[in-house]
């Protein structure tokens, strides 16, 4: 009896993994295959012939290209700024031992919990109240807010394993506090910091909910462009756009794996001696 419960448990988890695989990976594979469809109309899966026509369409469509350009610029700036602020905030939080530490930490991570639609709407009102109507500024502001929790979170995780005595040892050996940071804290927290910036980039590239509220007719991101295209003329260019969006994120992850090793980020997240 005991045994059969155990066996059932194993069976159940295998089924779960299979289901997850089917629902996570299968649609993506379908989208990728469909983006190479050679038919000029939206037909059934699988395509009878293959071509790059939807990609050609994408790269000749000024509307999509504008979206991709904006997305990339916003994502890069948001990643750099959010990493810088996030790392500073995490170091501050890590050192601060007074009252309100927990509250402050929760506050910094709150954008993770608040629905993106709420953030988008709130920001729209906020920017309007401030008299900021420029699409780029609003988008950048919104993306900073949604990416910031990731950079704080992962940097904090990276700092946890770094003993205070390491910084003190550096100072005892003649390094100033700043030097101790760059020589010891930063290299040890690097995996956490880099992981944070990757998440930031990926989430910025991917975001729809917040961006939808903050775009202007001239400034919009690629996912927003995809959504509006979906409403007006639905064709497989969207599939091509999706694959391109995915490629950017994937490239980043591959580069990252090559530079520091992904297992370190996902597995341990923290460098330990």
């Amino acid at each position, binding site marked *: 009896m005991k045994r059969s419960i155990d066996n059932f448990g194993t069976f159940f988890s295998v089924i779960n993994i299979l289901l997850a695989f089917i629902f996570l990976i299968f649609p993506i594979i379908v989208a990728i295959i469909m983006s190479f469809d050679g038919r000029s109309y939206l037909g059934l899966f699988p395509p009878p012939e293959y071509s790059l026509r939807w990609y050609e369409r994408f790269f000749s469509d000024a509307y999509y290209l504008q979206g991709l350009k904006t997305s990339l610029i916003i994502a890069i700036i948001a990643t750099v700024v959010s990493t810088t602020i996030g790392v500073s905030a995490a170091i501050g939080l890590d050192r601060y031992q007074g009252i309100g530490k927990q509250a402050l930490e929760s506050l910094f991570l709150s954008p993770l919990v608040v629905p993106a639609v709420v953030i988008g709407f709130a920001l729209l009102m906020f920017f309007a109240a401030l008299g900021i109507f420029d699409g780029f500024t609003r988008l950048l502001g919104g993306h900073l807010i949604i990416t910031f929790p990731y950079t704080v979170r992962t940097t904090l995780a990276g700092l946890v394993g770094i*003993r205070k*005595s*390491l910084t*003190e*040892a*550096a*100072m*005892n*050996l*003649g*390094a*100033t506090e700043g*030097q101790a940071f760059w*020589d*010891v804290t930063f*290299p*040890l927290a690097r995996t956490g910091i880099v992981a944070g910036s990757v998440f930031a980039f990926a989430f910025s590239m991917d975001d729809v909910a917040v961006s939808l509220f903050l775009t202007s007719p001239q400034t919009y991101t690629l996912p927003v462009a995809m959504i509006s295209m979906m409403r007006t003329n639905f064709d497989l260019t969207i599939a091509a756009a999706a694959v391109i969006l995915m490629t950017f994120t994937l490239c980043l992850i591959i580069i990252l794996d090559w530079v520091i090793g992904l297992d370190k980020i996902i597995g341990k997240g923290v*460098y*330990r*001696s």
Partner: protein
Amino acid sequence: MNILELRNVTKRFGNFTAVDKVSFSVQKGKVLSLLGPSGCGKTTTLRLISGFENVDEGSILVSGKDVVNKRPYERNVGLLFQDYALFPHMSVEQNVAYGMKHRGFEKKLIPNRTNEMLELVKLIGFEKRKPGQLSGGQQQRVALARSLAISPEIILLDEPLSALDAKLRQELRFELKEILNTVNATTIVVTHDQEEAMSLGDSVIVMNEGKIIQEGHPTDIYEKPNSKFVAEFVGRSNWFNGNIVNKADDGILKIKTTEGFEFNILESLTPELSNGNYEICVRPERISLEKNEIIDEDSYINLLPGKVVDVAHLGPDIHTVIEVSNKRMIKVVEKYTGQVLKNNGTNVNLYFYPKDCIIVSSEK
């Protein structure tokens, strides 16, 4: 010459006084042990000297100059951390060279000195290893080399051997002493282990609750502790409580314990006290079970009859527990020289000299 001098140094954390008016000095090339239980303020004292905590009152002089307002990197004080604090992402070589880079050593001299230091701690051949690939003992030696490389005026060791297992500890204690001697380093060792403190230190300071209780040569600390706390901290002891009942001539006092025993003690070892109530400590190794060994004209030798309740043979020593009155146990330690072990229940006599009775105040 005093390399380091502390004058009435006080440090408070909120209402808690971690270090309370502590004054001492260390001369060039000497090793001072700071001994005390955890939380007695010894580590805080080290952190005050190295500049990681700010002094509330008093002054700290390094080579005659007050360093109280100096930052850690402005003081030439080496600190060996309890966890060694080796930089895990740097090789052994880089760890040792780190301080020299920041202390403005001439660049081309650094590799040479690094090598010299690794030779000193016998780690040649380990230059490229990362700390994670070294044993605990090796890590400690890297940390020591790293601290010594910058030629600090004084080196502070925070529980240097506590992270190692017992067997390794003895070996490394000897090695540590040798290395410190080689470079003639002025040193403070903080430890809660009395053996470590006494074997490494030229002098020992016993601390408790932020205060210095006693300072002296290791032998004096052991033989002439000034309080029950020190006596208990630096060795095993049997305690009696009693009052002076009779003052004999030739410097002998008679004391009557609460159990009703009468002991002879030396007047010269007895502090003057208002209430006349004393604690008497007899070290287990100063008590003899064999009368023939102590044939002596000393008529004042103390005798206490009892019954053996436990015998443990611990290699070089035999530990015997003897019941001298109802449930009153006395520990005795003898050297094992091949003698026949006593059976439980054997009636024995305990002998000890008045000069081996340590007398301290029973007042706190």
